[in-house]
């Protein structure tokens, strides 16, 4: 393969992008210097190491289980004759949209002792349900809410892979399991590692679930020190970010050795008859659906229904009305869809640099974008406020605008689109490009007529991941959104904090329905087929 040098304009764009994404990291370093923090001293203190190892242990466990679950679901819904495949493809991405602070609470409400499921079980004679807490509880909730990070890219990849190799393997006598291990696993490996990396980074930056499950990780140590000992919070955050950077670098050195698979469109993919495996497969998919979507939704419906009934019976009236819900819902949808769009514009140049040209700036930008995913949202919000205050006229212009909010969201979530975009770039066959160039198409025309059509479904799936995650984002929405721009998540948070559970339940259900609608549009657009 001939190694081409990246066009200079593209490298410039990549450099600008990586600088924009480096804002939070630079801010953290600055704050560590100015607040007299001592990250090196903290590194080996037991008050850091213990939560740190708990964080690592949790992240490894969640990564393993989310990777297996996400891959199994992806394979079952794309490669088999599983009943209701289309329905599953619409609903399986939905857990992404639960903000963990209410998702985990709803989960506990349904499944813990005395909860709604317990009522049901008692009526059939089972008395006590186990209590979810600690490592096990955090692991379970995070697995159930994070598997879509693996499921979506892997399903997209599976849909696109040619079936010829698999058919050959089967003809030569391999079992389905052998074929999967020797052929499919190798073909999906780049999507799988990219997705698993996101799960790992999300887990180390999560606060909502570990808080509710009472599992002491690094983020809890950071959270409890913000006001009491700010330098400590900044130092711990820096440790978290450096650790994330190391994990990203490790993933890159692994994924560099993974095979690349070029594909054409419109090839027949392989499909397997489940036979007597149909029931266990349905149990896995249905069970995932029941635990990750139905269980939290049941608690939300319970809260919402009680509130609506109370309102009807003339009890204490609800503190929200339909116009407030509508306002928040339109704000959520408009800002998250815009974010999905802008995130693509930010990551595609980087994906081209890293994927096609193997450019150093591209690899660097790629790592910066992905490591930023481990920075807690509040720090991204504060860092943007820090930079806008120090950039004079430009900052004043941006302050309190939707543009700044979208930018912040993109910095927070572009990592989600990065991996899938990179895979999409790498799958465009080189020879098509060369053929187009021979026929006299300039670079821009080749991008429009060769790259874009081949990458478009993949890019749409990537931006879908960003959109669903943006819909649940909290700290940036609270701190950076223009004043008077409520989103569903900010209103859910406000209601939930002071125990207005009915209001929180109603708006969380609206959030779930909106995400279901968006996911349905993506499936309809065959975005999950890549």
């Amino acid at each position, binding site marked *: 393969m001939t190694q081409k040098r990246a066009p200079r304009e593209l490298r410039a764009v990549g450099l600008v992008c990586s600088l924009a994404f480096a804002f939070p990291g630079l801010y953290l370093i600055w704050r560590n210097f100015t607040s007299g923090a001592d990250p090196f001293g903290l590194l080996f203190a037991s008050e850091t190491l213990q939560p740190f190892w708990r964080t690592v242990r949790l992240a490894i466990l969640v990564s393993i289980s989310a990777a297996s679950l996400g891959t199994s679901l992806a394979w079952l819904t794309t490669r088999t004759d599983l009943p209701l495949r289309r329905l599953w493809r619409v609903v399986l991405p939905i857990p992404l949209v639960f903000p963990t602070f209410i998702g985990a*609470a709803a989960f*506990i*409400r349904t499944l*813990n*002792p*005395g909860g709604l499921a*317990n009522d049901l079980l008692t009526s059939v004679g089972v008395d006590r349900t186990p*209590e979810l807490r600690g490592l096990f509880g955090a692991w379970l909730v995070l697995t159930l809410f994070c598997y879509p990070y693996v499921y979506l890219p892997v399903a997209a990849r599976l849909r696109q892979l040619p079936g010829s190799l698999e058919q050959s393997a089967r003809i030569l006598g391999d079992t389905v399991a052998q074929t999967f291990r020797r052929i499919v696993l190798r073909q999906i490996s780049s999507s799988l590692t990219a997705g698993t990396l996101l799960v790992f980074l999300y887990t180390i930056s999560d606060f909502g679930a570990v808080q*509710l499950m*009472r599992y002491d990780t690094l983020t*809890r140590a950071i959270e*409890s020190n*913000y*006001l*009491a000992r700010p330098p400590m919070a900044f130092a711990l955050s820096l440790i978290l970010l450096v650790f994330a950077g190391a994990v990203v670098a490790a993933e890159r050195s692994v994924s560099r050795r993974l095979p690349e698979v070029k594909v054409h469109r419109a090839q027949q993919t392989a499909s397997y008859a489940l036979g007597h495996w149909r029931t266990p497969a349905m149990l896995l998919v249905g069970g995932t659906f029941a635990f990750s979507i139905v269980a939290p939704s049941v608690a939300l419906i319970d*809260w919402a229904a*009680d*509130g609506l009934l*109370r309102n009807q019976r003339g*009890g204490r*009236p609800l*503190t*929200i009305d339909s116009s407030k819900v*509508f306002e928040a819902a*339109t*704000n959520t*949808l*408009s800002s998250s*869809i*815009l974010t999905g*769009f802008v995130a693509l514009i930010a990551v595609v140049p980087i994906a081209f640099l890293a994927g096609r040209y193997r450019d150093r700036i591209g690899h660097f930008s790629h790592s910066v974008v992905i490591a930023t995913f481990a920075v807690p949202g*509040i720090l991204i*919000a*504060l860092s943007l*406020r820090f930079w806008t*205050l120090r950039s004079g006229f430009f900052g004043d212009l941006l302050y309190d605008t*939707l543009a700044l909010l979208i930018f912040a969201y993109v910095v927070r979530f572009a990592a989600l689109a990065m991996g899938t975009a990179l895979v999409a770039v790498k799958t465009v066959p080189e020879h098509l490009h060369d053929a187009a160039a021979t026929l006299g198409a300039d670079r821009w025309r080749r991008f429009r007529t060769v790259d874009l059509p081949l990458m*478009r479904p993949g890019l*749409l799936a990537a931006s879908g991941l960003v959109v669903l995650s943006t819909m649940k984002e909290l*700290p940036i929405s*609270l*701190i950076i959104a223009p*004043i*008077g*721009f*409520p989103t569903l998540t*900010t*209103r859910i*948070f*406000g*209601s*939930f*904090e*002071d*125990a*207005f*559970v*009915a*209001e929180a339940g109603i708006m969380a259900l609206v959030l779930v329905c909106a995400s279901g609608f968006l996911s349905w549009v993506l499936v309809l*657009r065959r975005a999950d087929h890549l």
Partner: protein
Amino acid sequence: MFRRLLPIFIAFGMFGTACGSSNQLQIDGSAAEINPDACVAGTNREVTIYSGRTENLIEPVLEAFACATGISVQVRWGSSTQLALLIDEEGDRSPADIFLSRSPGPVGFLESKGLLGTINSDILNLVSNENRSTEGRWVGFSGRKRVLVYNIDLVSEAELPTSVFDLTEKKWRSKVAIPATNGSFVDWFTVFRDQYGTDIATKWLDDMVDNEARYYPNNRSIVEATGRGEIEMGLVNHYYNYQEVAVAGDDHRAKNHNLGDNDIGSLLIITAATVLDSSKNPDEANELLAYLLTAPVQSYFTNRTIPARGGHSTKCRVAITHRS
């Protein structure tokens, strides 16, 4: 495909902006109960609030204020801790005039950073001494009482303790929930330490831990877990249980129990209002603070929390304390 989706983006974008502006010279619901009079004409005066107290509770009050004075009110709703960090980051360029905090911690943080201005003395004089700062940096405008919430099926009313010190007895082993890292619990503990000395307070906490007190992340989750019977009882703020009862009625199996009036366990934690040192509209800010302490607003809070202008039975001192 993008081309086909583009009109949708634009349509959503326009919705967003169309909903952004609203004429607030007409009010209804709770806001109209607070201010039944016709609204005065709008002025070009304005005030900006960062509020850590929830929109569900405060918004009717602010609507009533805007209606009564013609001052337009801008609010950034959020979590008290995060808003305090934001104000610290913004420094003297903060657009905020007022900061309303859910708990004393963030106020102490801002005070220690020298970011709080002085409130007019006629407003400070509206509340009793324990509900305002001696330097005039903050004034309490509503309160949250600490109570013991208990499951009525698992614990009988007669055997309930009258002091937090009783909770270290064997009888309550592994039956009490505490929200150890929660803001209002930390604030409560700080006052406890202040009044009884660090030794007694720390010993109580150690005894609680030895007695297998169970740790929960916040008040809401304790009330919820107590209602389900996951745990017998827990130390919380009073109004979470009201909310659960309001939603679930008799199905919610927990009640609030007031520990003794003079017990530290019945402390009233106030929610404080402050004017920022950097405020560009200090007159309007003070006007709003005064409005929070008027009779109609205080009686509105009574139905939902506890007002700060007297009328409550707890005698405990309420203090905004610096955290070191």
